[in-house]
């Protein structure tokens, strides 16, 4: 990689074009963030951080960088499995709903009558399986979609009201054009000076200490 060209950073005056850690050290350190300018740089950095044995690290990027999750060693998500069961629940619900509302007639313990609304149409059976297919399909899709979104948010622990990354004013360009690798202080291998030196060796645009 070519030498890093310091670019003017719009967000922060105090940290202008600095490759150094801010002068006042953060007391309540949550993690160290190394900021990069290209997807290639963060891809390389992530593989190196992983080979160096760090586990509590993450990359924050404006768009999903292709292959970065593999380079980071992210385990494949269980989401599709959850969605499958969500979808099956929808199918069952649809069958139950239609059979119950259109045909059911039973007396619970011979006391409580549970009756659906039985309505004869052109002599067709009350449980007309072919006619029930569209609603079964729709509810399967509906519950799958709700599970997909709910499951994704749940696994990602979103909505997230507070996070050190969101707190830091210097991290605002993550959603624009910067690629940030964060090693958390919680990592067993983490040491403030060593990790910082290691991140410095990855040739980042700058390094930022994140306050918890």
């Amino acid at each position, binding site marked *: 990689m070519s030498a890093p060209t310091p670019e003017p950073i719009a967000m922060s005056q105090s940290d202008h074009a600095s490759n150094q850690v801010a002068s006042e050290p953060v007391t309540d350190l949550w993690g160290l963030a190394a900021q990069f300018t*290209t*997807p*290639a740089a*963060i*891809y*390389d950095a992530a*593989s190196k951080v992983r080979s160096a044995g760090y586990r509590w690290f*993450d990359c*924050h*990027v*404006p*768009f*999903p*960088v*292709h292959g*970065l999750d593999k*380079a*980071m060693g*992210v385990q494949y*998500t269980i*989401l599709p499995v959850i969605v499958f069961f969500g979808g099956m629940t929808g199918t069952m619900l649809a069958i139950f*709903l*239609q059979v119950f*509302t*259109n045909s059911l007639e039973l007396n619970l313990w011979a006391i409580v009558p549970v*009756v*659906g*609304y039985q*309505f004869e*149409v052109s002599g*067709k059976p009350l449980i*007309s399986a072919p*006619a*029930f297919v*569209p*609603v079964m*399909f*729709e*509810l399967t*899709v*509906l519950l*799958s*979609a709700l599970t*997909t*979104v709910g499951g*994704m948010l749940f696994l*990602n622990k*979103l*909505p*997230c*009201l507070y*996070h050190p*990354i*969101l707190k830091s004013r210097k991290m*605002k*360009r*993550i*959603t*624009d*054009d910067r690629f940030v690798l964060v090693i958390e202080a919680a990592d067993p291998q983490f040491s403030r000076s060593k990790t910082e030196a290691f991140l410095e060796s990855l040739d980042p645009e700058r390094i930022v200490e994140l306050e918890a």
Partner: protein
Amino acid sequence: MTTLPIEHPIDELSDDPRERAPLILDHDDFASVTADILRCNEAKKPPKAWYVAFVLSFSMLSMLGVLIGYLIFTGVGVWGNNNPAMWGFPIVNFVFWVGIGHAGTLISAILFLFRQKWRTSINRFAEAMTIFAVICAGLFPGIHIGRVWLAYWLFPIPNQMDMWPQFRSPLLWDVFAVGTYFTVSLLFWYVGMIPDLATMRDRATNKIKAIAYGFFALGWRGSMRHWHRYERAYLLLAALATPLVLSVHSVVSFDFAVSQLPGWHTTIFPPYFVAGAIFSGFAMVLSLAIPARELWGLKDFITMRHLENMCKIVLLTGSMVGYAYAMEFFIAWYSGEVYESFAFINRAFGQYAWAYWIMVSCNVICPQLFWFKAIRRNVWVMFIITLFVNLGMWFERFVITVTSLANDFLPSSWGWFEPTWVDVLTFVGSFGLFMTLFLLFIRFLPILAIAEIKGVMPAADPHAHHDHDEEGQP
């Protein structure tokens, strides 16, 4: 905002398969993409044309509100619906608006599964269009039921009458199909927007914006561990929405096809309706995209190439619709069924022949002009053709609904449907609802999928400017 000059001219319209056309023009870096897409959202004031359009749309929306009030207080007699034409404008408008929505889902889901990367420039506002169109569509059956305050009878809700909806009726399937379609489209649209809302939150210049966008961005921070699940979720939603979009208009067509009326009781309806829906939807996407890219300065993102691709889809689906019209006639004759044959001869030469020929000229003849490259690249001609297509598709629904109802089996029970001024103005008002929502959307929400567009730029490839042999296997 900086844009790097591109050294050699790139022809985004080149048909040479050896060089891939660039999906966006004149943007080499991510920051300029963000800034340019959000320029109009972040500007203090939108362009003047926006205000003009908004005032116009909002007055139409207000008119819609007044007319619905008039309808509720007076009764459905204010419409032209009669016996035998029980389904007049409300159902025609319902089918029209649901159809419009289909292009949005096709772009966001089906083109996504087919890895058509050019979709990234148009999917966001096409999805928005879907949602607003489905809102307009949902309005009409709601007010068509007469006693609006009993609309909840459509849903299986336990009640003191011990009554349940009739699940063997296609009208109830429709409730589920349209309800699911709306929900899934909304989820798809919203999930796609979360990263872009986070971008807007981080660029917000005042507290109110930061809180509002921050609330809906759910604390998104671009974590790759999140992106991993997010991408899976997005793919799953696309895979779910694909059969859904094909099913919705099929179910809408069941409203007609499951009944016994000549001209309705045909098996061709589901595919024919779906093709027509995509046809009208793409026409509407074009009608919206052409002014929006002009007004919002998005010509680098929605390039002529994008418009040309959409024209090709309009041409394809228009031809499918034309084929379906011809096939209906053939089957009517081939079946030897006297009522069926009459229904079609009556459509083309009966009392509603004018509507039929408006439909044929707008839907079958008009899009054939897109065979010519010069027309596919002329925004004015394109815009006019898409307006005609929308008109034609509305008339298609009118022809199907009204001709079959007005002239069914017994000549003694034939009738004549004529819309009243309330019918016409309610339909016009629904455009006010649609346009008002759309204008609010382009003002306050990211009109293009910023994160997705960045992902398809050449600069987004992590291996683009890098030689791995030097550094070893990553």
